[in-house]
């Protein structure tokens, strides 16, 4: 980014015109810079995936072709042709051309076809599973963050009391245990040992027979099935918010404007929310991107554990079945989701903290 900026500034005419002027404009706006960075990252990831899948010796494409030739007795050309359509690649063209075609296909939303479910486009499969992951992760992050900062603030206000010590230790312990183990623990103890909830029934993202739509049955059912994964995500991330918020509330309480707020005779409630809370919540918010990556990554295991039909579950099955196009597609989508989520979090943060907006620097 720096290089482009410098280039733009150095070579643009006095009144930035044309392409360089546009570049300059992008470089100077926080918003546009962030978006550009996100797009570049997605691009890099897509390229990486391409090279990984296509060029790795013993990689999926080669393996697939070899498989077709030996198992199904196909001629090499036929095998290649099949592989080409499945992976949406043209195997005869030079690599860079394949690469460009791959990118072109991507831009059109063509992720190839599934190996296992012949003829079904990967994008279609992904679209069926994607909403559930977004739903469960989104809900979990909102709950986790809100609860986390409220608890964190409570802990800071009640510093050094028993409550604070209990919560701090609890938060520490809970965040040290890997989230998937937490999921297994919930399953094993709450579900099997104590029989508090009917885990078998909770499998899947929807009960059989329930139709998607904007009605209460659907929404309630969706939440019912997502509740255990959401609980696991929340437990896995809340510790971070609690501890960070506790620290930042403590330091915010010492800020001048809080003392002055008291001197101004403001009500305790207003000081706690608009003066302390509002400012103390900013540092935890910057940790959001870490959580997003963690949670999307963890979805692989957690959806597997609870048999929740989201992207993680899809990816796991694709890996087991060696369904390379689906693997590739899902991975790319997950990465894109993480990048987009981070971008949104960044933009939201710049709205929340006026000092960032004006500075125009990240």
């Amino acid at each position, binding site marked *: *980014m*720096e*290089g482009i900026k410098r280039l733009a500034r150095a070579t643009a005419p006095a009144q930035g015109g044309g392409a360089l002027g546009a570049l300059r404009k992008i470089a100077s706006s926080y918003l546009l810079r962030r978006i550009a*960075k996100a797009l570049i*990252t997605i691009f*890099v*990831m897509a390229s990486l995936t391409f090279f*990984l*899948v296509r060029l*790795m010796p*013993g*990689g*999926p494409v080669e393996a697939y072709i070899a498989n077709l030739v030996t198992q199904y007795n196909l001629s090499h050309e036929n095998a290649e042709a099949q592989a080409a359509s499945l992976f949406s690649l043209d195997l005869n063209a030079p690599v860079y051309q394949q690469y460009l075609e791959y990118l072109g296909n991507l831009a059109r939303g063509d992720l190839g076809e599934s190996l296992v479910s012949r003829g079904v486009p990967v994008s279609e499969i992904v679209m069926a599973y994607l909403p559930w992951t977004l739903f469960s992760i989104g809900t979990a992050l909102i709950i986790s963050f809100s609860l986390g900062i409220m608890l964190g603030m409570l802990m800071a206000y009640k510093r050094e009391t028993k409550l604070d010590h209990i919560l701090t230790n609890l938060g*520490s*312990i809970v965040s*040290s*245990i*890997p989230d*998937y*183990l937490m999921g*297994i*623990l919930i*399953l*094993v103890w709450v579900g*099997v*040992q104590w029989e508090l909830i009917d885990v*078998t029934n909770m499998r899947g993202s929807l009960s059989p027979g329930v139709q998607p739509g904007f009605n209460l049955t659907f929404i309630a059912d969706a939440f019912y099935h997502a509740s255990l994964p959401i609980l696991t995500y929340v437990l896995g991330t809340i510790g971070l918010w609690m501890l960070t918020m506790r620290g930042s509330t403590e330091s915010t309480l010492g800020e001048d404007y809080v003392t002055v707020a008291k001197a101004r005779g403001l009500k305790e409630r207003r000081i706690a929310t608009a003066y302390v809370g509002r400012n103390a919540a900013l540092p935890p918010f910057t940790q959001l991107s*870490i959580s997003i*990556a963690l949670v*999307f*990554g*963890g979805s*692989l*295991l957690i959806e*597997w554990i609870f048999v929740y039909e989201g992207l*993680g579950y899809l*990816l*796991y099955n694709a*890996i*087991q079945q*060696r369904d*390379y196009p689906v*693997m*590739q597609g*899902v*991975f790319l989508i*997950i*990465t894109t989701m*993480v*990048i987009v989520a*981070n971008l949104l979090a960044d933009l939201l943060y710049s709205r929340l903290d006026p000092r960032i907006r004006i500075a125009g620097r990240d």
Partner: protein
Amino acid sequence: MAATTGESRFRDSAVGRVLGWFASTLKLMARNKVGFAGFLVVSTIVLVTFIGPIFLPSEVPVDVKEIYETPSLSHPLGTDSEGKDVLLQIINGGRPILTIGFLAAAISTTIAVTLGSLSGFLGGRADTGFTWLADMVLTIPQLPLLAVLAGILRLNSKIAVAGLIGVLFWPTLMRAIRAQVLSLKERDYVESARALGLGTPHIVFREIAPNMAGYIAINFTLAVTASMYFVVALTLLGLVPLSEDNWGVMLNLAWTRGAIFSKDSIFYIMAPIAAIALFQLGLVAMNRSLSEIFDPRLRRGS
């Protein structure tokens, strides 16, 4: 006279120095109760899992008569679905996991320290470049990538797995190291070293690095926690074809054999979970102690 010379010679010898270092480390650790407890837990687990197997049969005997036994004198943690003793499996099963964990952490930390120091110290384009790279690696969701790569590449050596994990985890550490280097760069003794014309390698290794030793230790511990997370995840998913019994494989077997849903196998399931959780908690606690010891605020002037 001879006795004292003997003593001092021992103390100055390599062995003596290492032991001395150990002693002072222990003393430092003991300052923080929680941290010390964590240190004990971690060391115990490491010792038991690395040295224990030497004394135990490498193949835990199968005994179909004793499936899913509850804990007893002969089987302190019960048995699994094949009648194998759980405790033995736990002791045997730690080493592979921990080895990969430490190895991956070492790789990560090395990359992070190198890139972080270079980035912080050189500044300018190098800095921007490395930071940009770190940001990029950071946005890759690690577990899916690891899973996909494990699926494609069929990793079957511990080093490969460790390498893979290590290569993904360094960005966070690198940022932290870089921040430290940036702040240390401005310190007086670095300025004077520069003024004296001592070269970059000298400054980096003789002036800055020793002050970062503690910081690196803290980050290494964190890296171990993180790589443990990934190793266990991968083995749990059955994506890493490690043949030995290890904690992750135990859980994987529990899953595939339906042990999760049976009430009797609770010990078999909880044992590896407890082992992993204890180890992680121990590391985190130890880390708190280390942070206190190496806190830059307390180290002013050194």
